């Protein structure tokens, strides 16, 4: 499959659009269906697709293992951090009202960062899962 030139060209063309679509789903989540979780899955799928066409090593160059691992932890910290920020600004935990002078705007801001945290974690986990299973597979063949 790696040798198929048509596939490679199409993949090269498609992957950026898939990532773009993920971002669209992420930011359009306020107005239409979508949100951090779905966007994370789509983004991870885009990279999985890339890996399927170009091989594991190429995928790793695009988004290395350690980065995925950091991402999955950082996402949770970001989300929980938004909560702590609310606490520091004098509100309750996960209180978005206090994030901005205008409470509605504060809500908006809170939701934005929270969704970003979700996306980060989900992308990280999905990719990491894929890498882990793919790695095991190669081990199995080597034995």
């Amino acid at each position: 499959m790696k040798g198929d030139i048509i596939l490679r060209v199409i993949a090269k063309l498609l992957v950026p659009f898939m990532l773009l679509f993920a971002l669209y789903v992420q930011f359009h989540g306020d107005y239409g269906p979508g949100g951090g979780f779905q966007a994370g899955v789509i983004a991870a799928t885009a990279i999985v697709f890339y890996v399927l066409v170009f091989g594991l090593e190429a995928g790793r160059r695009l988004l290395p293992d350690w980065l995925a691992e950091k991402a999955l932890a950082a996402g949770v910290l970001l989300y929980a951090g938004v909560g702590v920020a609310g606490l520091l600004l004098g509100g309750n935990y996960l209180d978005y009202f206090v994030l901005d002078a205008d409470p509605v705007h504060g809500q908006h801001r809170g939701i934005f960062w929270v969704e970003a945290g979700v996306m980060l974690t989900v992308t990280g986990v999905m990719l990491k899962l894929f890498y882990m299973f793919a790695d095991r597979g190669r081990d199995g063949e080597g034995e």
Partner: protein
Amino acid sequence: MTPAYLSYWLTIFLMVAGLYILIARGNLLKKLIGLAVFQTSVYLLYIAPGKLIGGTAPIVAEGFTRYSNPLPHVLILTAIVVGVATLALGLAITVRIREAYGTVEEDEILERDRADAE
């Protein structure tokens, strides 16, 4: 009465089938799939009653006044995520079992454990 309860009964049928696969099959992977079907059927239990005929998706827009209930959607989004997390973990454990035992059939694993004990 029948159409009113049809959605519940479909849900229940799926649940029972999933549970059956889960209990009756000896293959660890197939058990996990049964588990996934079982969990998926719960989605319908929550979502179906939230629908209002003539309603629309809960995205506030001009010209609509009747929306389906958004709360179950939120809950089920969470449940789906939990489901896939469980599935991933289950598969990882299954892969390790396969490496440690060389099989994913329940009875063969138990046999090998018994052989260990003797």
